[in-house]
């Protein structure tokens, strides 16, 4: 988790702290094909996702894997009319850019799960920057940790998840 924010940040970045920004809506259908692809990638045979009878009994129909919550907001790598690749977690990439830290990894991630996400749901998300650390040096290089959150609600206003991330943006030494 990032420390209290550094004093030597650009004013623009300081202004982002605590602000709910980057409201986005899901741009492609939430459907079970993607869920089963994740289940296949992790060799997860949980019948809740494979067996409609089990899904009907336990969850009144199919639901998506809770840990897939961030997947629904990852934009297409290419789509008609787009001239540059869109990126998920735009806040993270904007921080890399504004702080001139071209490389980055995620170190911490916390997700709290609420209402299950179902096929056909339309979700809205916002991103909030909580803090940015002073410069630090790790085995990867010299850079800053930043702590930010993402809230996801469905079309009924139900909170489906809250995510909290710590990223480390750096320059290789």
């Amino acid at each position: 988790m990032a420390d209290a924010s550094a004093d030597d940040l650009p004013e623009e970045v300081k202004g982002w702290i605590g602000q709910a920004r980057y409201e986005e809506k899901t741009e492609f259908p939430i459907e079970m094909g993607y869920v089963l692809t994740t289940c296949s990638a992790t060799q997860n045979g949980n019948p809740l996702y494979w067996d409609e009878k089990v899904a009907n009994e336990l969850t009144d129909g199919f639901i998506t894997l809770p840990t897939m919550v961030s997947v629904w907001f990852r934009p297409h790598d290419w789509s008609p009319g787009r001239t540059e690749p869109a990126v998920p977690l735009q806040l993270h990439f904007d921080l890399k850019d504004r702080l001139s830290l071209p490389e980055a990894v995620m170190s911490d991630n916390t997700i709290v799960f609420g209402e299950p996400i179902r096929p056909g749901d339309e979700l809205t998300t916002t991103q909030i920057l909580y803090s940015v650390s002073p410069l630090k040096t790790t085995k990867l290089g010299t850079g800053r940790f930043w702590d930010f959150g993402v809230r996801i609600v469905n079309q009924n206003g139900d909170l489906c998840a809250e995510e909290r991330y710590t990223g480390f943006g750096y320059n290789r030494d």
Partner: protein
Amino acid sequence: MAAELLIGDVSVGQDVPVLDKDVKPVTVVLGAMASRDWRPQHHDYKFATGNNGLDDIIMNTPNLAAWFERYLTDWTGPKGRLGRIKFRMKDSVYPGDTMKFAGKVTGIEPATGGISWVDVTIELTAGDKSCVSCEARIAVPNDADVNPWKLKGDDWKP
């Protein structure tokens, strides 16, 4: 047949059965594509090593979250409902590694709605490398006729 864990089957200090999984390049790429993660460090060896200073392409965080969920629900069965998951990335998982998921129950907390919260810490290691530390909270039914997935609002507070 899927497991059907009840809270009476769980005790603090109990080990969750270990899961070992060999990582191949396709494991990394499939996981990244399944989680719609097109970033090159997860599929482009030259980028991962040349630009990011890594040893190879690496497993991505969202797919690792799905692996942790799979590990827990293998143990609980389909009624196990994940409430919260926190993980800290310590080292990268590369092709050629064997992932080992090893969990231990650290707490049991009775809750409303006929469930109990089970807290589990899970270490993901690859050989001598400690790769990810995970803390998870999962709802387990107290009785066979309880369904954690029915809980909403004030009855669902992970």
